[in-house]
């Protein structure tokens, strides 16, 4: 039995919507089979008004044991650090967040807004948004780098825009079944079990990457999206091509470039002119190379690739 409180700050509720797509376990399974007691959730909770406030104050005071606090959305600090532009139950949400993080055994930041600040924190960040323990790549965020929850862990970051339902259900199952100790977090406090590998791991276009055959325009039935269309798959840590989305797909499988949404800088380059869906290059070499590959290595690799390329690689492969 685990008590979970889930709140939204500067959010779109995309992570909640993604969570509701979960199967095995479904959101309902978590409650009925895994003993999760969802104290309140903004999209699903029964109570309104003062009844919600009472739930929160009971968690803060300790009268209700708060096992897991899930926060979705950014911490809004505007205007001028007061947080008044995101009020909840009559006071700035950031004040509730501070108190609830102190009260909870485990704190989970769900989705990019809560982990890094996300889209609201994109320049010029009008809402003065932060993630719980990071702002973009910088450790600190709202709670500060030194924060640990009652169970001794820092904020568990489940990034993504949104996060995949499995990334959150399985972490909740892990905590609820006593496997919190198995949670190995990387330097950005992401569970390694999901975020060690790359979006490119398992991508259906890997052979086209290998032979440097590019998808030159949208709507084509072949090619790798990295060379021209701005795909960040080789640089992004995610399991998107290992655990499929909505049971059937992933962006790169469907011909959409990976936007790197599990990484702290998302959206990249602050969406400056000329950067969206375009690979930026200098003298034909992409500015952002696959992780760990340097320019010399890239030139050797692609030179050999082009020389070895079989004729079939230029033909349509994802055919009717």
């Amino acid at each position, binding site marked *: 039995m685990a008590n979970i409180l889930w709140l*939204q700050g*500067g*959010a*779109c*509720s*995309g*992570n909640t*919507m*993604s969570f*509701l*797509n979960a199967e095995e376990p*479904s*959101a*309902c399974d978590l*409650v*009925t089979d895994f003993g999760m007691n969802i104290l309140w959730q*903004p*999209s*699903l909770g029964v*109570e*309104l*008004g*003062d009844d*919600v406030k009472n739930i929160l104050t009971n968690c803060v005071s300790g009268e209700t044991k708060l096992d897991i606090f899930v926060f979705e959305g*950014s911490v*809004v600090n*505007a*205007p*001028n650090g007061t947080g*008044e*532009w*995101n009020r*909840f*139950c*009559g006071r700035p949400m950031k004040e509730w967040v501070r108190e609830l993080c102190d009260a909870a055994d485990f704190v989970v930041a769900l989705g990019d807004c809560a982990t890094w600040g996300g889209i609201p924190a*994109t320049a*010029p960040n*009008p*809402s003065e948004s932060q993630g719980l323990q990071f702002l973009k790549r910088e450790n600190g965020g709202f709670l500060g780098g030194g924060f640990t929850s009652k169970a001794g862990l820092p904020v568990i970051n489940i990034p993504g*825009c949104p996060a995949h339902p499995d990334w959150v259900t399985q972490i909740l199952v892990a905590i609820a079944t006593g496997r919190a100790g198995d949670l190995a977090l990387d330097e950005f406090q992401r569970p390694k079990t999901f975020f060690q590998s790359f979006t490119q791991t398992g991508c259906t276009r890997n052979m086209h990457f290998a032979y440097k055959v590019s998808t030159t325009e*949208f*709507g*084509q039935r072949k090619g790798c999206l990295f060379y021209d269309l701005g795909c960040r798959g080789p640089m992004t840590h995610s399991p998107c091509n290992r655990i499929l*989305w*909505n*049971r*059937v*797909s*992933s*962006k790169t499988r*469907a*011909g*959409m470039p990976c936007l790197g949404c599990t990484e702290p800088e998302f*959206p990249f380059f*602050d*969406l*400056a*002119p000329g950067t*969206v869906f375009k690979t930026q290059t200098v003298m034909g070499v992409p500015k952002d190379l696959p992780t760990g590959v340097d320019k010399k290595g890239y030139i050797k690799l692609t030179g050999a690739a082009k020389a070895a390329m079989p004729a079939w690689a230029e033909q349509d492969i994802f055919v*009717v």
Partner: protein
Amino acid sequence: MSQVQTLDISPVGRVEGDLDVRVDIEDGVVTNAWTSAELFRGFEIILRDKDPQAGLVVTPRACGICGASHLTCAAWALDTAWGTEVPRNAIIARNLGQLAESLQSLPRHHYGLFMIDMCNKNYKNSPFYEEAVKRWAPFTGTNYEHGVTISGRPVEIYAMLGGQWPHSSFMVPGGVMCSPTLTDVTRSWGILEHFRTNWIESMWLGCSLERYEEIQTYDDFMAWLDEKPEHANSDLGMMWRMGCDIGLDKYGKGLDKFVSWGYLPHEEKYNKPTIGNRNQSIQMPSGVFDGATGTHKLMDQAKTREDVTHAWYDEGGGAKHPFDRTTQPISNNEHDFEKNYSWSTATVHEENGHLEAGPLARELIYGGDHMEDFQYKDGLVLDMYKKMGGANVLLRHFARMHEVKYIYRQIERCLRELRLDEPFYIKPKEQDGQGWGATEAIRGALCHWIEVEGGKIKNYQIIAPTTWNVGPRSAEEERGPIEEALIGTPIADPSDPVEVGHVARSYDSCLVCTVHAHDAKTGEELSRFKTS
């Protein structure tokens, strides 16, 4: 002489985002109401000076449940700004994405957000109460569990087109990024049929879709309810009968004026999209329905106005078209219910004032005779509206669920009309320009205006359906649609005002989409854009 009791309900949950409601109650009935949008993120500020295609990435994140609808608007806005050509397959693929998202939202909103309130202890004396709790209790109700879980299936179709749901950006100016194959289409058919067999017909209707489509009038619907126990005991039948029993047909009328942009461009009529030719190109017609006069007319985006009299802005000069606003936020956003009390502006029609957006609006508009011959017509909800004496909570929600009929048939049409050997994308020429993209999100009328200048976004404005619905009073002191709908609501127990929840959730409000952009630090004037 009775006392006025003022109730502040903060938050009203099970709407998307943060909604606060204040009501005055006299003799157990709401006599005045104020709705307040409580969160500001500032998307249009973020988009200023960014890549012209930045809206394709950012605007779906205005809302987690309507991301495809925002993407549709963002893409069409760029198409009209850049003067692109969009191939028929791309129009179909975009429509299919919008429809898949809408189909998902039906059971998800119905069970996840709306029906739970039928299990409120206030209704324990209803003969339907025990069955309601068995079916619709949150997380444990039999039909809740089934409905919420199966709601994830339609968006698998979206994921095949765009890679994932929520939040893809697969609709781009000039077409779509994807190039679906035969198995994508056949798999989509399989998902659609599974959804029909395992929810629409078995749990929701208790009959075949074909039988349901025979219902044309209020009397037909009443006859359908009585025809077989399977109908009366289906979730639709139960919802209707319990709704009448607990009085949901007696309040929630609102302003009795409605708006829809219409949507689902026809694949052979909008290949050279412009702002001006949209009304004649869409399959589901646009409209304004005025209940007082019983008249329909087309909707024109040039008639949209935003009025900040009662919102947290300080701008002179009355209501303006969104692109003509100079946005000046008030830094101190304290509630002053006589003056400024919301981040939402009062979005109004220049001639008609506040209008209600949403499925009820759409369905009433489909009952009109103001549209093109090829456009969709359905008189059922208009007939029910007349027979019931106007709108109410129950009819508003019925209208939402009634859309399953055409959403399903439209998805079938899309899957049939795709020509897999034809193009899905025609590369556009990037240029400066002004554009407008619109759709009907499941929640109602949604649109984006964009101005591209010098290779970047000069101005970007979003009006969401909930902006229409949750807006505060206008300068003329006309209440917003939800505020008006709350008037006359009975409150049995002020410590648990579930009736306020029924009204707000019958609008399926989405607060996250609603709030606009302001340059907080400098109060700087946003660029101007004149619509012609």
